Every structure is written in C-alpha cells, then in structure tokens.
C-alpha cells in the first residue's frame, strides 16, 4: 500500500479487514479464551419451572462436594441491588428483578443459586446436588391471555400483568381519516418471538484485587462503559474509577449483549467475596433460557385508502410480550422504536398506535437486531400489499403512488419522527429492474396455469438508526445520553491510535474507523490502530446497537481528526512562517498555497508537536483530540427488497428462489463491510419468515430450547443475495453515513411474507403466522378449499 494517499482516498473503498488475520489464524481473544491465575468456575442452578414459589434451597451436599468453594443463593446477595431499567415510560410499572431469585421464580431458566468451584467439572457436578423445593404456580406465556381477568398474576404489585399503556399519533384525526375512506384493510398480526443466537455464548470473568480495591470484568458486551456505569453505580455500588470492564473480541451480539444480566453481576459479587477470579460461560441451552428474547407482538391493524389508492390512515393496536420482568431497554423497543416507524416510506395522513406491555412467564424480551422496526415494517408493508390486492393495483405501483417525494425532506411524519433525507422511488425501480419484475409477473402467470405457485414479495422499508440525539432520547425516557466519543492520539512518529466508544463484534470497526482516520490524514491504513472495548483505555462510550457505530461513533472520530488537523495546520503555518489561512492540506502534505513542494509532512508536524522546541506561542505540546458527537437527528436508511419464492402446494414447502436487496444507507466507508452487514441482516430476516420461532408450551417450557429445535438457517437454505445500493447522504453527520447493521433484518421478513402470501393468493390466503413452515402452509392450503 502506498504510504501517501489523497485525502479520503480510503473512504469508500473495500479494503480488506485488518482484524481478519487474528480470527483466521485462531488468535482471537474471546472472553472464554482467557485464563487467569487462580481462576475459579461458576455454574448456575436454574429453575425448571416457569412459575413457582421457592419453599427451600438445600445446598448442604453441594457445599461438601470436592472442589466446591461456595454456593450462594438470592438471600446471600440481598445487598446487591435489583437489575436496572434504562428506559422509563410514563406510568411504567417496574417489578423488582433480582440477580438470583428470591421467593419466586417467574421464567424457566431463572437462576436460583450459583456454585463456585475449582474447575467447571466440580461446579457442574455440585449444581446437580443442590436441592430446591419448588411449589409450582399457575403459568401464563401468551401476552393476550395474561391480560385476561382471571390470568395467573406474575407480580403482586401488578394485578393485571400490564407494565404500561403507551400511545402515539392523533386518534381523532385517524378516526376522521377512516370515516372518509373508500377502502379499509384490517388484519391481525403475530410477530413471533425470536432468539438472537450469536454463535459465541455470553461469558464473563470477574477478578477483584483487595490490595487496590480494583474490580476487573471481562465481558461479552456490546457496550462496556454502559455495563460499567449501570453495574457499578446502580447494582453493585462499586466506584466507577475502580471498576474496569473489558469487552475483548465478541462473537456476535445482535442486541443480546447490550443488557445487564444477572450472571456478570453475580460473578463480580463472587470474586469480591472469595478473593479469586471467577469465570462463567453460558452453554447454548443457557443462551436459549437467559439471553433476552426479541419481538413477540400481537397486533390488530387497519389501513385506510382513498379511491385512488392513497393511504389516508393507519390504526394500530399492539400487545407486546415483555417476559417475566423488564429487561434493560425492554420498554423502549415496542414503543419508541416501533410506533414511530409506522409511517414507512409513505405520505400517510393520520396514524394512531397504542401499545400494551405485558408480563408473562417467559424470558424477558428486549432489543434483537432491528428491535421494533421489523415489527413496524411488517405491519405497514403487509397492509400495503393487502391494499394492493383489494384495490386491484400492482403492489409496486401502489407503493410508488404513496411514496414521500424526494423534495419533501426533511419530512415530518404523524408519529413524531422527521426523516432526514430520502429518495425512495429510485431504490424501488432499481430493485424491480434487478428482479426483472415484469418478466417475473409473466412467469408467475404462466406457472400458475401449470399448477405451480410462484410468489413475488416487495418490502419498501424505512428504519431510524444512528441512535440518537441525546436530548430527544432523554425527553422520551432514556436514562442515558446517546452520543459517542472518540479520542485520536497522534504519536511522535506520526502513527495513530484511535480510541472509540463504539464496540465491534463483527462490524469491522478496526478497519472502517482506520479508513476514516488514515484517509483524512493521508496515512497508510496500517499506521492507524483502533482500540475499543476497554473502559481503562477508552475515555467513555455508549457502545454499538441501533446501527449507530458509523453514524455516531464514526462521526466522533471524524470530529477528533479535524481537531488534530487544525492543530497540525497551526504548527505548519508557524514552521513555514505563513498565515494559518494560507496553509493548504493535501493528504499528509501541509503547505503554503502554491508551494506544495516546500510543505511539511504530517509526520514532521507530529514530531514537532511532541519535541515542542518550536511551537507557536501559547500552543500546548502534543497532538491528540477527544470529541463527543451528539447527532441532531436519527438517520433513516431505506430501500426496497424483493423476495421470489415457490410454494409446492402438495407439501407446503416454500423455496426461496431469489432475494434482491437495494438499500440506501447513505455514504459508505467500506462497501465490502456494508454489504456483509446487509447479507447478515437479510439472512436473519428471511429466517424469521421461514424457520425461526421461540415456542413455549402452556407450562412455560421452552420447546425450542436448543439448536435442534430452533431453526437457525444453514447455507443450503439460503440463496446467493442480489444486492445494489442507491446513495442519499445523511445531512445529520459529517460523514453522510446512515447505518447498515439492521436494514436486512427489518426489510426481509415482510418481503418473504409478501412473496409467500402472493404465491398463496390463488387459494384466497391473505395471512399466515410466521414462520411459514411446510405444515403451516400445507394446512392453510387444505383449509382453503381451493386445492
């Protein structure tokens, strides 16, 4: 690679990732890979019941087991505060959630005791010796059933099991819109419960040194500073400056590693109690039973159209299953990340959405890739297709007619958000072109005549990401700001270390962030090192979720680089005996306008900054900058995805034949990485439509509790993806980027759903619950009476 490059020559190019080599040679450092001297092992005893009173816990035999160092129950940890809730809604009911159950367990897998032993074998053996006497209680797992008057009650303080009633939009205007509508489409939707299933299970190592009163926690975290703040200040009462959280290489998150979980809190308590490091690593069964689940909505929705097909109103009533208690951001997901997105890409005159959050005897629900936005997209995009069917208008044409026009941005929706930018029609047209839409429709017609059922499904999605303007988030109930920080430190030799508050667990920040810096400073990529995931090294950070790393974290890095360049320009002006305003910068060359050959190289300026032998009067030595970037608005990626499926009527089997995705995520730092993010999101979204579902039996037993029953997609279940992008830069950050991590998971479920239901339209089938398994599709065809 050339040592000197033009400004920004690295941004927008698919450079290969710097982090790859360590992963490809087995040299990654995941939490469970680490071993500390004297380290002990923790194993949790978990409730087999979904709802039960704990009569007694007898750990006598377990304590006597060879190698066991301690057995602790909820009673031992009463000094530890309950788990925090990070997003408050008006009137929110917050039942106490303790790290080890006290008195009552409320979901299968809730931890009731922890065994600490010399090694994992002894700990696991001893866990089987703990005798817990449970008195089973009545169970409710379905959110709608939990609202019934005679339903089992989860929390004494909450007789009707509801956590909140929330609404957004204008009910009166919406009623008026419906009253004057030519067509009204009604549909009940079930957006099924999902489990993130990052392939690396959650893990932690806690280590306490009494000598310095220092607590260190290695944790599979998407946001180590958030973990430190919440655990230190609110749960454990540990001073923040004596508490270091390190989130090393993390094997995927998808939301599930944002939250404060009981296990890391218990590990921190145990290491302080025993004075030895302790490691806990979930096995996959524990992941299923304890990682926050996602989605789980029941929704009744209606869309009103005028005679020409203009959408005039949308009314949505949702019951959101929150699980047995409130996970960290559980209240925000089915409210502000959901109801605010119901305008889609369309000019909808009036919208009203109300949501009831409900407690059930299930694992707490929180953000999973997309978090609220896939649920909103599903409702809007399915209703649009149903409208197209009712009005006899092609689904692509109906979307086209309703798009917010490109000259209407920024666009104020009826549900609080103001879209920053957008140009929806070109993405739709490009997707149609890639798909060969007219040809596909012709093929569909021909195949139907042969008794074959091809389906074509569109999804024109919107998302809000780049979370978020702190002031807005605060006004809506967030208990934290949502800015990001970055420190750019130039070393005397001109090499650079970047400290980012974002966290990479697959997103390639070490490469993409280095591209921003190296490009701006005219350096080679290998001259820039990106550090993240360590509270002792990185000043502060809000972490990675909500597709925010580039739009917020990247922007913070950009700000710091500009500050560094400004200072370098001052030094250059001084050394070149010129006015600062006469200094021009090209790559790493700082020169007086018109004399590039007599310029100073950035490396020379860095050295001058640290030698400090000859600096402008009053200028501090050194060359580094810290910035906190707080965006003025969310960013709003969009696009159109098209799925093509064939349904075999005799068996109900659905084959996904093609998947076309045209996305607009604004400017792109590394197209290769962005495309990879989109692929992954699309795969998870397709999987929701066709295979994945977390299913409980009526007794609250998770029937899909392992990878044998919960159907993660395999390679042969997915096609090669056909992708393209349009580019509408975001005006709300200096990079013009929007975010790409969640787009696929938002767009894909309903694209596939629309395709399957399009294939089934000859049978008069307009709706089926996901996932579209062969048995479900086959049964629907049988019941249609038109087979």
């Amino acid at each position, binding site marked *: 690679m050339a040592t000197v490059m033009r400004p920004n020559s690295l941004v927008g190019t698919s450079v290969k990732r710097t982090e790859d080599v360590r992963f490809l040679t087995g040299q990654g450092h995941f939490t469970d890979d680490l071993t500390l001297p004297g380290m002990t092992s923790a194993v949790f005893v978990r409730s087999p019941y979904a709802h039960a009173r704990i009569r007694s816990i007898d750990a006598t035999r377990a304590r006597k087991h060879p190698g066991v160092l301690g057995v602790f129950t909820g009673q031992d940890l009463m000094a530890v505060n309950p788990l925090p809730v990070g997003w408050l809604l008006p009137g929110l009911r917050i039942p106490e959630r303790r790290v080890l159950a006290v008195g009552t367990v409320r979901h299968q897998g809730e931890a009731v005791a922890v065994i600490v032993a010399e090694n994992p074998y002894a700990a696991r053996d001893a866990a089987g010796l703990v005798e817990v006497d449970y008195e089973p209680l009545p169970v409710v797992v379905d959110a709608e059933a939990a609202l019934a008057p005679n339903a089992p009650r989860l929390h004494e303080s909450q007789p009707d099991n509801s956590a909140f009633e929330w609404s957004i939009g204008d009910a009166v205007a919406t009623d008026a819109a419906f009253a004057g509508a030519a067509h009204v489409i009604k549909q009940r939707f079930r957006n099924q419960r999902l489990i993130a299933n990052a392939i690396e299970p959650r893990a932690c190592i806690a280590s306490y040194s009494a000598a310095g009163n220092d607590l260190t926690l290695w944790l599979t975290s998407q946001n180590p500073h958030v973990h430190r703040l919440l655990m230190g200040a609110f749960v454990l009462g540990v001073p923040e400056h004596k508490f270091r959280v390190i989130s090393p290489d993390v094997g995927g998150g998808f939301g599930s590693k944002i939250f404060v979980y009981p296990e890391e809190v218990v590990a921190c308590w145990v290491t302080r109690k025993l004075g030895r490091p302790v490691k806990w690593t979930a096995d996959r069964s524990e992941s299923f039973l304890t990682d926050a689940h996602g989605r789980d909505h029941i929704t009744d929705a209606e869309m009103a159209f005028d005679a020409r097909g203009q959408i005039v109103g949308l009314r949505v009533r949702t019951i959101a299953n929150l699980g047995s208690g409130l996970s960290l951001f559980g209240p925000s997901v089915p409210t502000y990340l959901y109801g605010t997105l119901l305008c889609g890409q369309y000019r909808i005159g009036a919208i009203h959405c109300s949501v009831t959050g409900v407690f059930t005897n299930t694992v707490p629900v929180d953000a999973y890739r997309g978090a609220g936005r896939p649920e909103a997209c599903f409702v809007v995009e399915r209703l649009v297709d149903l409208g197209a069917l009712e009005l006899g208008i092609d689904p692509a044409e109906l979307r086209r007619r309703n798009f917010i026009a490109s000259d209407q941005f920024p666009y104020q929706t009826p549900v609080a958000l103001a879209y920053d930018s957008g140009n929806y029609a070109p993405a739709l047209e490009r997707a149609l072109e890639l798909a060969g839409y007219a040809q596909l429709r012709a093929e569909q017609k021909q195949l139907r005549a042969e008794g074959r059922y091809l389906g074509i499904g569109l999804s024109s999605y919107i998302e809000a990401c780049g979370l978020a303007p702190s002031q807005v988030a605060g006004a809506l109930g967030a208990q934290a700001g949502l800015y990001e920080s970055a420190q750019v430190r130039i070393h005397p030799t001109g090499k650079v270390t970047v400290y980012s508050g974002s966290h990479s667990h697959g997103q390639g920040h070490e490469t993409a962030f280095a591209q921003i810096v190296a490009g701006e400073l005219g350096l080679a990529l290998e001259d820039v090192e990106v550090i993240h995931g360590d509270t002792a090294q990185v000043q502060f950070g809000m972490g990675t979720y909500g597709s925010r790393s580039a739009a917020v974290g990247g922007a913070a890095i950009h700000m710091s680089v500009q500050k560094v360049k400004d200072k370098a320009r001052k030094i250059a002006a001084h050394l070149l005996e010129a006015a600062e305003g006469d200094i021009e910068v090209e790559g790493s060359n700082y020169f007086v306008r018109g004399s590039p050959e007599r310029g100073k190289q950035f490396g020379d300026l860095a050295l001058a900054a640290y030698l400090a032998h000859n600096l402008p009067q009053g200028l501090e030595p050194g060359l580094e900058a810290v910035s906190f970037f707080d965006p003025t608005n969310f960013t709003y990626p969009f696009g159109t995805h098209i799925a093509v499926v064939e349904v075999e009527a005799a068996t109900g089997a659905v084959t996904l034949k093609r998947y076309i995705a045209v996305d607009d995520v604004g400017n792109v730092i590394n197209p290769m990485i962005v495309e*990879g993010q989109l692929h992954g999101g699309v795969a998870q979204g397709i999987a929701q439509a066709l295979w994945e579902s977390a299913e409980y039996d009526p007794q609250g037993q998770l029937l899909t509790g392992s990878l044998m029953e919960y159907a993660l997609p395999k390679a042969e279940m997915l096609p090669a993806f056909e992708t393209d992008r349009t580019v509408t830069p975001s005006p709300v950050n200096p990079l013009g980027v929007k975010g790409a991590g969640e787009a696929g998971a938002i767009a894909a479920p309903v694209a596939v759903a629309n395709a399957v239901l399009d294939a089934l339209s000859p049978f008069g089938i307009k709706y089926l619950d996901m996932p579209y398994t062969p048995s479900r599709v086959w049964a629907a065809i049988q019941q249609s009476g038109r087979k």
Partner: protein
Amino acid sequence: MAEVTIAVNGVSSSHSIQDRMLLVHYLRDVLRLTGTHVGCDTSQCGACTVLLDGVAVKSCTVLAAQADGSHVATIEGMGTPAALHALQQAFREEHGLQCGFCTPGVVMAAADMLRRNPSPTEEQVRSELGGNLCRCTGYHNIVKAILRAAEQMRSEQQSPARAVPMAAAAR
C-alpha cells in the same frame, strides 16, 4: 483418569486427563489452543470443528480419550499471519467472516470438504456446510470464499510448508 498421547498440529504430547474430558476442552484448556471454539452443546454449530486423522469432526462430540494416538489439526496449524493458507486468504479476500467466532470451524470443515472434492459447485459447498452455523454473514461470502480457495488450490499446487497440517493429520 485417562492417559492420552495426541499429536496436535504435528506436535505430540501426553497428558493425564479426566475420562469425560471432551477433545475441544483438551485443545482449549490443556493445550491452550483457543482458536477452536464452543458455540453450542448439541453438535449443531460446528465452531469446534477440527481434523481428526485428516477427517473433519466436531471436537465437542469426541472424548479426548478417543483421540489417543491420533493426529489432530486445528486452525492454529493451518497457516501463519505471514503465510496464510489458501482458505484463510480467500476468507479474507471475500469477507467470509465478521465476528470470527464460527470461522475456525468453518475453515476446518472447508479444508475437509476440498480434500474430498477439490472442485465443488456452489450447491455442493452450501450443502457441505450443513454442519456449520454462521449468524453474521448469511453464508454468501463464506460460499464465495470456499469456491475461491478451491480455485486457488487447484491452480497452484500448494507449497509443502502450507500443506503441513493436513499432511500431518492425514498420516
């Protein structure tokens, strides 16, 4: 306790281990070769895939005692940062990894796949990957990487240095 002698990446060593110790834990906890990962407890995810006497196995489903006297090849033996194996290089070129957790298992499974079938079709690659789960990539770029590596490995005979781990495992 069981006495085992296992040659891992060409280096033989003997240990006294618990009878119930899994091969993956022997590699990770006894030999400290932590590139082989554990992602599930039901033999689905394939993050623990290694070559046992040249054949891909899920090391979470093999007792270390069963590997006594065998040759095991792990990701650490495939190539070095300075001299990546063709598969490792292809995964980097095609962005066939994101978080990197499933990657070692996928690479080892791919090594076995290409040993048995040096010229797979895309369909065959997808089918053969049935024992490995990746949650990040949607497999698109993994498939491209394996096809690219296959082409690379066919077009230029691998240098002896690069072929060591598989050759050692196949002895």
